[in-house]
């Protein structure tokens, strides 16, 4: 396993927002071509961690290397070159409301390539066909349902044929069938085009459908990394509780640490 090429490497990532320490030293290696799932409860820092991998945030301490380069150290032009090789699928889809579906998907092509307009139109049609939305080119994002927006966001993420795609909660808030379709798309892209996928999610069905390897984040640290099977049969109480969704266990659903009685009578 270890002979595979490491495409993303995070070493000792620390990040705090004001007083709030979000990440407490996260170390991870992601190999080329695999589908890597980062799971964890809400607020455990997994989306924040993903933003460090894409260079949207810089760590307070530690370093991230993406495609062999540390984004925090690169000049703007070099950073852009790396960013052109990745795609990102946002939790809220983050489609540009002022553009049509086709406008959204073709934007990276229009800005970064010298392709002719009619070639771009064909590429857009092909990407939309991949996500099952051909024929929706001229709709505005506000006319689409949540699941359709996610799929358009995915089409936009893959339009430059990236080497790595990051997904932030790709199936959150979708009905099970659309969720399944998205999972299948992620798998197809990884297997057919050997794209590396990094998926942040807390949807357990989705995790075991798509993951080659899984990491679990808890309180800003990685508690366990392993293949999907290893995680499924883990001895770790934290991970077991998370997978089975038990209300009682080492993970408390209470976010505050202080004493209930004390805070009531304070």
């Amino acid at each position, binding site marked *: 396993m270890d002979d595979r090429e490491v495409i993303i490497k995070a070493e000792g990532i620390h990040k705090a927002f004001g007083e709030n320490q979000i990440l407490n030293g996260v170390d991870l290696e992601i190999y080329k071509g695999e589908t890597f799932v980062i799971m964890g409860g809400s607020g455990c820092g997994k989306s924040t961690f993903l933003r460090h991998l894409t260079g949207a945030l810089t760590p307070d301490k530690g370093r991230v290397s993406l495609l062999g380069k540390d984004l925090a150290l690169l000049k703007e032009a070099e950073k852009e070159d790396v960013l052109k090789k990745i795609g990102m699928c946002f939790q809220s889809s*983050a489609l540009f*409301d002022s553009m049509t579906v086709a406008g959204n998907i073709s934007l*990276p092509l229009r800005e970064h390539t010298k392709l002719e307009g009619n070639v771009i139109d064909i590429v857009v049609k092909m990407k939309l066909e991949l996500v099952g939305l051909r024929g929706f080119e001229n709709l505005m994002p506000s006319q689409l349902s949540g699941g359709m927006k996610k799929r358009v966001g995915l089409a936009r993420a893959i339009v430059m044929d990236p080497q790595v795609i990051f997904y932030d909660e790709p199936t959150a808030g979708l009905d099970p069938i659309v969720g399944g379709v998205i999972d299948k798309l992620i798998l197809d892209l990884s297997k057919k085009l050997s794209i590396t996928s990094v998926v942040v999610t807390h949807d357990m069905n989705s995790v075991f459908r798509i993951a080659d390897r899984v990491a679990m984040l808890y309180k800003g640290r990685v508690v366990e990394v392993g293949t999907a099977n290893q995680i499924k049969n883990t001895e770790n109480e934290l991970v077991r509780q998370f997978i089975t969704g038990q209300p009682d266990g080492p993970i408390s659903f209470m976010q505050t640490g202080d004493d209930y009685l004390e805070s009531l009578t304070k």
Partner: protein
Amino acid sequence: MKNLLDRFTSGALSAIGGIGRAVMDLGAHTFKVYNLLVETIRWVVIGPFKKKFVKSDAIFSQMVFTGVESLIIAFFVAMFTGVVIAMQTAPQLATFGGTVYVASLVAVSIARELGPVLTALVVAGRVGSAMTAELGTMKVSEQIEALETIALNPVRFLVVPRFLALCVMLPCLTIIADFAGIIGGFIVGVFSLHISPALYIDVTFRFLTAKDVTTGLVKAFVFAVTIAMIACYKGLNTKGGAEGVGKSTTQSVVISFILIILFDCILTGIFYFTKV
């Protein structure tokens, strides 16, 4: 008594601390707006050489929104102001038989002062607020981050077209507003004060110099930079959902208004003391 004194001192100290923090905040924001301006100008200047300039249709659509669609409101605001100045000053001028000078008074005060300032205020309210709201919504709905991950710089892609459109269109609107104000004065002068149209026009252009108009246009340009920078800065730094967008939009308009008046004061002072 001692207790009271203690409370007073601590109150006074915290008030001083508050003022200190406000000044520091103001300094920090000013510095950030300045940085945004520098980066915007950098993109405007080096952009064309790096083949990474903004698409012309982006600038064009912003120019339509900023300029063409503000035309009617800017025209009528200036025209009615011209009417008001003529009506307010005619009785005063009549007391020493100089009613005809209504023409020059309206023309000079509109060209030097009210044309640029009122147009800038109208545009700050109409265009600046829309820019902040749009960029703010993009910020809180992750669209700005999405732009960055597809390797598009938000300053180049969003700020530069808005900045250029305002810098071109606000002076244009100001010229039209100058014209509208003079028409307003003309209406009162001809139809109410019974000055002959030819005389009104003659007096207008005898006193209105090119300098009056150009100083007004310099002002308009400075106001355009101010509106664009404040609106974009406030928009790009929006935090906290729908409420945050509302807050940034209000702040953007309020700050633009204050700065327009402040810069108007400073520029008028400069023109006054250098006898321009």
